[in-house]
């Protein structure tokens, strides 16, 4: 089978395109260069799925798309499992991509496995590193992902089937302004007869405890040992305009909600400053915050593994240390 190009699903929810799609377009440009170094020509193709999505075509090109396939239909206004699975499956069957990347959002993780099963290919979930196999005459994508709570990394290949599919979590890669020239999009003829009826009764914005973690400039996070000091940490965080976050341990203590959890199973963040208070530094947590520009860790245990990641490590009780910090602010 003749396979070609790197396809990226651009997820659009009620006319809003999610950033992760653009991040993956930029990543794909890097992969394209790696393929080019092996004299394999690939284009980066955005698959823009939604309703009234014209306005996103240019943005796709801005962040690295050479071409854009538009799948526009009113049933796609909000991405549902059945419709998007059908759309992506049809696109794959029509164009035979070499690689297919999907943002590991709730929607992406819902549909990607079904698409993979339907087109009979393998799927790597939540890859954090992608590169083209440097070995001669290999076209394989090396997809590296964490497992065992981020303690172990595995490099996955999909050698027998196409496309080579991977989902990638938001904020793992950054979007880069490639400003590729805008070309006439390929309008995909989408016909769809729904079979599974899922009746949506209500959609409402979730109550958020903290600010939006992903966009936070500064984050102050507490670990399990801070369970009895959550209020003090929150107070301190708001006094310095930082967003409050938590490790899985603190979330499990029941003192804070899951929506502020940073880590492998929570949110990945890359703030300018991350202050880890009483967080031991389990791999599952550090996987979600190690990309912060500056990391300060405060922990009573001088051997805590969080200090392996911190730019500044302070051995001491976080509550006491922060009380002291307050004096100098």
């Amino acid at each position, binding site marked *: 089978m003749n396979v070609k190009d790197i396809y990226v699903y651009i997820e659009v929810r009620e006319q809003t395109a999610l950033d992760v799609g653009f991040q993956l377009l930029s990543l794909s440009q890097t992969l394209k260069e790696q393929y080019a170094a092996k004299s394999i020509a690939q284009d980066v193709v955005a698959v823009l799925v939604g309703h009234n999505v014209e306005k996103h075509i240019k943005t796709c090109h801005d962040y690295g798309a050479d071409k854009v396939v538009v799948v526009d239909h009113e049933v796609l206004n909000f991405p549902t*499992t*059945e419709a998007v699975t059908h759309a992506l499956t049809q696109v794959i069957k029509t164009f035979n991509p070499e690689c297919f990347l999907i943002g590991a*959002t*709730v*929607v992406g*993780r819902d*549909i*990607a*496995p*079904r698409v*993979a*099963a339907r087109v009979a*290919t*393998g*799927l790597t979930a*939540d890859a954090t590193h992608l590169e083209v196999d440097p070995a001669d005459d290999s076209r394989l994508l090396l997809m590296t992902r964490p*497992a*065992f*709570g981020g*303690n*172990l*990394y595995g*490099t*996955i*290949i*999909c050698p*027998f089937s196409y496309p080579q599919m991977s989902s990638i979590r938001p904020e793992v890669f950054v979007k880069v302004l490639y400003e590729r020239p805008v070309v006439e999009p390929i309008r995909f003829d989408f016909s769809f007869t729904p079979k*599974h009826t*899922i009746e*949506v*009764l*209500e*959609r*409402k*914005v*979730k109550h958020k405890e903290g600010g939006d973690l992903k966009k936070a*400039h*500064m984050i102050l996070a507490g670990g399990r040992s801070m369970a009895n000091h959550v209020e003090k940490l929150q107070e301190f965080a708001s006094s310095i305009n930082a967003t409050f976050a938590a490790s899985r*341990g603190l979330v499990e203590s029941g003192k804070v909600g899951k929506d502020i959890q940073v880590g492998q199973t929570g949110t990945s963040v890359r703030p300018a*400053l991350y202050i880890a208070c009483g967080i031991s530094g389990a791999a599952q947590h550090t996987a979600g915050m*190690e990309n912060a520009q500056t990391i*300060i860790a*405060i922990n009573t245990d*001088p051997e805590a593994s969080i*200090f*392996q*990641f*911190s*730019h*500044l*490590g*302070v*051995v*001491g009780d976080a509550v006491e*240390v922060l009380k*002291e*910090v307050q*004096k*100098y*602010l």
Partner: protein
Amino acid sequence: MKIIVLVKQVPNTTEIKVDPIKGTLIRDGVDSIINPDDRASVECALMIKDQFPETHVRVLTMGPKQAVGMLQELYGMGVDECSLINDAIFAGADTWATSLTLSKAIALYEYDLILAGRQAIDGDTAQVGPQVAEWLDLPQVTYVSSIKEVTDKNITVVKSYEDMEEVCRVSFPCLITTLADQIKPRLGNFSLVWESNQREIPILTSVELKADPKEVGLKGSLTQVKKTFVKSVSKKGQMIKDDIELAAKTIADIIHQNNHA
């Protein structure tokens, strides 16, 4: 109503540490636990059984023989029947082969509802549930944080998105994947726990599943693990010990820089 719950036994990944010299996982002394999202699925099934006592809850798990202990624990919570899918040829399966194998096991039984955890804490792929639904051609609702209502024809659930919640109703038969966050599993019942190690656990092998060795386990997998490695940790940054004043001044300074950046 007939419910099938898919459950996986996993190592407690929060306990796993890395041997910094050998660069391998230290798995000794790490407990095996019921995957938290799957436990939430079991709880959902039992809640439905509380409401409709004639409900039959069957648990299926694929894994090594030691998973019998986990299934006994589930008997203690009140599930009706457990089976262990176990065969040497099932080993090393990726999600494609795993979901296919599970689908073959599910096909042996009647069901209205299939429940599974969103993802397992050892692999974190979140792929098995949707792929089982695909094999069985069922509608799915993933990321379910709670169940709102169950009738004999359909189930209404709350699906959790990143920033939004959706209430949706889906007719049986269907597949739902659950999140552990808000579904608090019950503890065992005293006498069920007391009797749990006498409960029989049938084993389903490739014979019962009529599985073709080429399509299951490592051989049937479409992805391969090329290599695994333990992440090398970055070099230690500056450390301050026993001088809280210096620490406080330094932290305050960094905060100032960032607040004025």
